[in-house]
């Protein structure tokens, strides 16, 4: 008995020791890389684009030898770390607010990288293969808790020829703060003044009804296990898990199935001027083919980086992201690429980034 305890203790210690060693190794490596500005960049932020970012960083390191360390700690953390200057660039799904920008003396540029979309997924076996059709006002009232039955006259009117049951409608939303939530409630606030007044827009909100699931997987599980549920998840996640998704009526009155093309179309439907700061919401976009619940995701970089060599490294990296090859990688992973007009504007902005107050070569 005491022998086994002894062994357990010893192995516990050696485990701890090796963890500590690992920790030191990791930290040491990070520091060493950080000191050498030209061969490595660090970034932190949004989790939604993490799969494509890590693919980009990997490919970029192979092509140029510049390592990019990215921690997907969440958009809020990305903005925080960027503001605290602990990273070279940040990443966020929701643009920085004016106050936050004032917090960095306006020395920030939002650069869109790819597009994401939020889809409504539901579990209603009696609907069969008919996709559920929803319009903006109905979605808002469902999530406000005003439509509580599947055979509500408004749902029936939107879905003629289907057999909607007299069954409770159960809402599922994200419980963790999330860019996905931000995009979804941004849409709801645009289409419903009641939502704007009662709930508002944020990465976490005070939901009037529903169950909270942690992450896309948490929402999906609750929806798939419980009849009569409706929830929202990222398009990428819905596609890779073949979830049943609703068609949503866009601002032009068309019912649109969420797809990469429909998302890129939404982005193209919101025009930006040459002096744009890219902090543009593309929810409820105009255009016949636009899917209305979509958004950019952004990288945050300094407009004028005092460290010239770092500014240059970031500039070439950003240029690379907007090449057709890199954007094609995004499509492969299920992210919608930027429309050409926006990519052109972004390239122009990247070219005018400053380092140490001077134009970069």
């Amino acid at each position, binding site marked *: 008995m005491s022998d086994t305890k002894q062994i357990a203790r010893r192995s516990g210690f050696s485990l701890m020791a090796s963890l500590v060693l690992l920790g030191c190794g990791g930290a040491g490596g990070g520091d060493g890389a950080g000191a050498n500005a030209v061969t490595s960049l660090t970034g932190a932020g949004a989790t939604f684009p993490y799969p494509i970012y890590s693919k980009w960083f990997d490919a970029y390191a192979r092509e140029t030898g510049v390592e990019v360390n990215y921690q997907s700690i969440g958009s*809020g953390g990305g903005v*925080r770390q960027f503001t605290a200057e602990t990273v070279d660039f940040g990443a966020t799904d929701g643009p920085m607010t004016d106050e936050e920008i004032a917090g960095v003396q306006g020395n920030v540029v939002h650069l869109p990288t790819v597009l994401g979309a939020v889809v409504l997924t539901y579990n209603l076996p009696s609907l069969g293969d008919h996709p559920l059709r929803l319009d903006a006002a109905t979605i808002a009232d469902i999530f406000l808790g005003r439509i509580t039955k599947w055979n509500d006259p408004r749902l029936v009117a939107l879905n003629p020829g289907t057999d909607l049951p007299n069954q409770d409608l159960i809402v599922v939303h994200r419980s963790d703060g999330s860019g996905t939530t931000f995009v979804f409630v941004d849409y709801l606030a645009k289409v419903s003044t009641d939502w704007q007044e009662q709930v508002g827009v944020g990465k*976490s909100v005070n939901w009037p009804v529903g*169950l909270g699931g942690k992450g896309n997987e948490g929402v999906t599980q609750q929806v798939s296990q*419980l009849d009569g549920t409706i929830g929202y998840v990222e398009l990428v996640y819905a596609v890779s898990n073949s979830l049943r998704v609703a068609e949503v009526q866009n601002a032009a009155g068309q019912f649109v199935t969420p797809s990469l093309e429909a998302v890129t179309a939404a982005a193209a439907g919101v025009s930006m001027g040459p002096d744009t700061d890219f902090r543009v919401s593309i929810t409820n976009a105009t255009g016949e083919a636009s899917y209305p619940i979509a958004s950019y995701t952004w990288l945050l970089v300094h407009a004028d980086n005092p460290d010239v060599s770092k500014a240059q490294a970031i500039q070439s990296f950003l240029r690379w992201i907007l090449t057709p090859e890199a954007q094609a990688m995004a499509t492969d992973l299920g992210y919608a690429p930027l429309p050409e007009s926006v990519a052109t504007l972004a390239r122009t902005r990247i070219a005018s980034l400053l380092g140490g107050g001077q134009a970069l070569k």
Partner: protein
Amino acid sequence: MNEPESNVAPPKGEPHGFQDLSGTNVGDIVFKTVLILGALLIPVLLGFLVWELVDGSRLAIQEYGLGFLTSSTWDPVAEEFGALPLIFGTLLSSLLALLIAVPLSLGVAVFLTEFAPARIRSPIAFLLELLAAIPSVVYGLWGIFVLIPFLRATIFPFLQGTLGFLPFFSGPIYGPSMLAAAVILAIMVMPYIMSVSREVLLAVPASQREAAIALGATRWEAVTTAVIPSARSGIIGAIILGLGRALGETMAVTMVIGNTHELAASLFAPGYTMAAVVANEFTEASTDIHFAALTYVALALFVVTLAVNAFARLLVWRVTQKASGSGGGR
């Protein structure tokens, strides 16, 4: 002459030599210093932790004061925060978990020390202790995929059918709920309570049992009158350990509790806990006041845990007092 002298010298020198050893031996001084530093490190760390929590939540403390603990709105957009449903959820889920886990794990511990055939004791104890090594996210996933569907299909309808007249078992059944969280927590704290109580029961001298049996007690009577009373303080300690684990558990709970800021009497209704809200919202808390409110929740959790532990210590202390009092009487 030399020999007697050398015989006399050690007794004279020994106490002196001992004192020299403890005072001047370099190895001892280093060892002692290291130990003192190690011992000091823990209170210092704790101090830093508290300071960091208080400092981080200062904004929220100024804004909401103690009303934070009794308000139940949680609206990050309107910047209104209240932690009552969280405190309620944390305490209720942990207490329910203990209600389920304590009888089970005590039963197992007694069975393994007193009744089980010697051959199966170690394997079963080993397997139960393995439960403690499973990461909580795995418990959470298991909860989502296995436990919740099972509870929703069988246990919950049964409870509602038989005890539905009680407010605790009324209302719609979704699956993710306070009760599901309590069941997951119970499974997670069981190995701790079981394993510690088993050690404590093993430490009860065999003479206690033998004496009881010699007086004509059955094995059951020997266990309840002789073994468990002398292990009582240790068993309470084991329960406290389990409670501490339950109060702080985050990942598995947030995956099955439904994450809703509501005070509901029904155990089938979704709830929320303090640890879960911090884990859920911390990464995306972009405004300062939201950040401060979450830190305030963490501070409240710290205080609640401290209070529960202090109360438990008091309980252990009183039980030991009583036990030693009655021991003296005998």
